C-alpha cells in the first residue's frame, strides 16, 4: 500500500512540474485533470484498511469533478476563446521548472519544521501538498492568460485538498460536499466570466486588464 501511495505522491509532484514546464494549454489542462484523478484516489489508498461508503462517495465526487467536469469547463472556455492554445508566461518554462525545484525544497523544509502530526504513511503528503499549493500560486501570478490563472487556482485547490486528505478525516460529509460544491461553483462562475471577458475584449490576457487602478 505504501508503495502505491508513494508512487501516487510522486506522480502528483510530476504533474506539478509538467504544469510548470508545458507550453500547451490543453496539455496543462490534461495534467491538472490527471492530478485531480490521482488525488481522488488518494483518500481511498490512504485509508485502505478502513474503507467506508462515505469515503468512497467523497472520492468519487471529487474525482468526477476534478478529472472530468473542470477540464470540460476549461476546454469549453478555451474553445469559445478561439485559437489561444499557447501558455503565455511572464516567467520562462525552464526558469519555471527551476523555480519548481526550489519550491519543492522549500516545501520539504517547511514540512520538516511543522510539528509532526499524523501517521507515518501520510507524512510525505504534507510536503507534496505544500509544493502543489506553491506551484498553484506561482502559476496564478506568472502566467498571462485568464484560463491559466483558473488552472493555477485548480492546482492550488488540489494542494489544499491533498492536505485535507492527509489529516482532516473528521469533516462531516455534508461540509465536505459543500466545499466541493463551492469549488465547482467557483470554477463555473470563473468559466462564465472568462466567456464574458473574451466576448468583451477579444482576448484573455489579464495583463491587459488595466483600466482600474490608482495612479
Amino acid at each position, binding site marked *: 500500500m505504501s508503495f502505491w501511495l508513494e508512487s501516487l505522491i510522486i506522480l502528483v509532484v510530476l504533474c506539478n512540474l509538467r504544469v510548470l514546464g508545458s507550453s500547451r494549454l490543453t496539455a496543462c489542462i490534461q495534467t491538472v485533470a490527471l492530478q485531480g484523478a490521482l488525488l481522488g484516489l488518494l483518500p481511498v489508498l490512504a485509508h485502505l484498511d478502513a474503507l467506508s461508503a462515505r469515503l468512497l462517495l467523497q472520492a468519487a465526487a471529487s474525482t468526477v469533478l476534478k478529472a472530468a467536469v473542470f477540464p470540460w469547463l476549461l476546454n469549453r472556455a478555451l474553445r469559445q476563446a478561439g485559437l489561444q492554445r499557447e501558455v503565455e508566461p511572464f516567467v520562462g518554462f525552464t526558469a519555471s521548472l527551476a523555480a519548481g525545484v526550489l519550491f519543492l525544497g522549500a516545501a520539504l523544509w517547511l514540512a520538516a519544521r511543522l510539528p509532526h502530526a499524523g501517521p507515518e504513511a501520510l507524512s510525505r503528503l504534507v510536503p507534496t501538498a505544500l509544493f502543489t499549493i506553491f506551484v498553484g500560486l506561482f502559476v496564478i501570478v506568472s502566467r498571462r492568460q485568464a484560463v491559466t490563472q483558473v488552472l493555477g487556482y485548480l492546482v*492550488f485547490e488540489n494542494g489544499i485538498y491533498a492536505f485535507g486528505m492527509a489529516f482532516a478525516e473528521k469533516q462531516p460529509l455534508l461540509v465536505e460536499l459543500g466545499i466541493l460544491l463551492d469549488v465547482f461553483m467557483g470554477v463555473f462562475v470563473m468559466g462564465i466570466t472568462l466567456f464574458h471577458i473574451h466576448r468583451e475584449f477579444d482576448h484573455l490576457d489579464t495583463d491587459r486588464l488595466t483600466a482600474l487602478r490608482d495612479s
Partner: protein
Amino acid sequence: MIWTLLGVPLASAAAAFAIRADGPRRGLLLAAALTHAALTAACWTIQPAPVFGGYLALDAAGRLFLSLLSALFLAASFYGAGYLRAAGRTKEEEDAAGFLFANAPEAVFTGCLLCFLGTMSLAVLSQHFGLLWVGIEATTLCSAPLIHFHRQRRSLEATWKYLLVCSVGIALALLGNFFLAVAARQHHDLLMTVPELVAQAGRLDKQWLKAAFLLFLVGYGTKMGLAPMHTWLPDAHSEAPSVVSALLSGALLNCAFLALLRVNAVLAAAGLADFSGELLVGFGLLSMAVAAAFIIGQGDFKRLLAYSSVEHMGILAFGAGLGAAAPAALLHAVNHSLTKGFLFLTAGNLLAASRTKSVGEIRGLLRALPRSGALWLVGFLAITGSPPFGTFVSELWILQGALARHRGVLAALYLAFLAAVFAAMASVVLKMSQGEPSDRLKEVPGDDADPWRFWPPALLAAAVLVLGLWVPPPLLDAVREAAAVLGMR
C-alpha cells in the same frame, strides 16, 4: 427558525430566477427582505434552537451581525427596487468613455441578490468552521454576477479580480481550517465547532493553531479588505451598482470580520490572545495607513468610499486586536455598516444624476441636488467620525481602549490616520458639495425626488445620528454580550 432564516432568501432566489414579470419580482425582493428582517427581529425575543447538530446556531455575536445584515438588506432592497425600476426603463446606458452597454437580466440580479443574503446569513449563523468557510466562499460566488450587472469592460475587470483574489484568499482560509483540524488531531472526539473548540482550546496544539490563525487572517482578511490583501475591494466597490456596493461594504465585509473573530475566539481561549491581537492590530494599522494614502487625492468618489471601507476594516481589526476595546469594535461595526450603507446609496443617487464618478466633474451638489447633496455631506461627517454621529462614539471608545492598555504610540498612529483621512475626504467632499453646479449637474433628470431612492439612505443616516446621541442600552448589552461570546476581554 434558523432554517426559515436561510430558506426564505434561497427559496425566493429560486423563485426570482423563475418569475418572468419585473413587477412581481421586485415585490418578491421586498417581501423576502421584510420577512428576513421580521424573523431577525423575532430572534431578539425568542432564542432560536440550534439546528443541524449544533452546526447552525445563533449566538449573541451572530445575532448582532445578522440584525445588521438584515437591516441593511432591507434598506438596500427598497432602494434596489427603485433602482431597478429606473434602470429597467432605459435598455442601454452610456459609460464614462461614451460606450453603450446593456445591463444583466434583472432576474439574474434579483436572484443573486437574494442568494447573497442567504449565503451571508449562512456565514453568520454557522458555528462549524467548515460550514463557515462554505458560507463565505458562497458569498463571493453569489456576488460576482452582481458586480458584473453593468455589462461593460470595467465592471468585468473588477469581477475577474474579485473572483480570483477572493477565491485564492479564501482557499487559504480553507487550508487554515485543515491546520485547525490538525491542531485538534490529538483528540478525536473534538468537533470542529466554535463552542467546542473554545471549550477545549487548552488541548489544541499551539504551533499548528498559530499557523492556522495566520492562514485565516490572510484568507478572511482578503475578504474583509485588510491591506495588503485589499486590492480587489476598490475595483469591485466602484464598479458594482451602488446597491451592491452598499451590501458589499456594509454586510459582506462584516461577515468576514465575524469569521475572523470566531477564529480569534479559539486562539484567545487557548491563551494566544496576545499573538492574534498583535497581528490584528498590525494589520489594522497597516490598512488604515494604506487607505489614508489612497484617499488623499482620490479622483473617483466611489473608490473614495471603498478605500474608506478599507480604513474602517482597519479600525475594526485594530479595536478587536486591542481586546479591551472589543465591544467598541463591534459597536463600530454597527456604525460603519449603517453609515457606509447610506453613503453608497447616496453615491448611487449622485451617479444616477451626474453620470460620472469623477470628483472633478461634480460641483455644487447642495444646490443642484439639495436632498442627496445634504445626505452626502452628512455621510462624510459621519464616516470620518465627527460628532454627533455614532462613529464618533465608537472611535472614541476604541481610542480609550488603546490608552487604557498604555499603547500610546499605537493610539497616536490611530489618531494620525483618522485625521489624515478626515482632511483628505473633506477636501474632496466639500469641493463637490459647494459652489455653482457644474455642467454635469445642470440638467438633473429629477431622480433626486424619487422617494424609493431617498428614504432608505435617509433613514439609515437618521439611525447613525441617533446612535451618536444615545446608544440604546439593549444595543450596548448586545455588543458587550457578543464581545464576551467572542472571548474578547
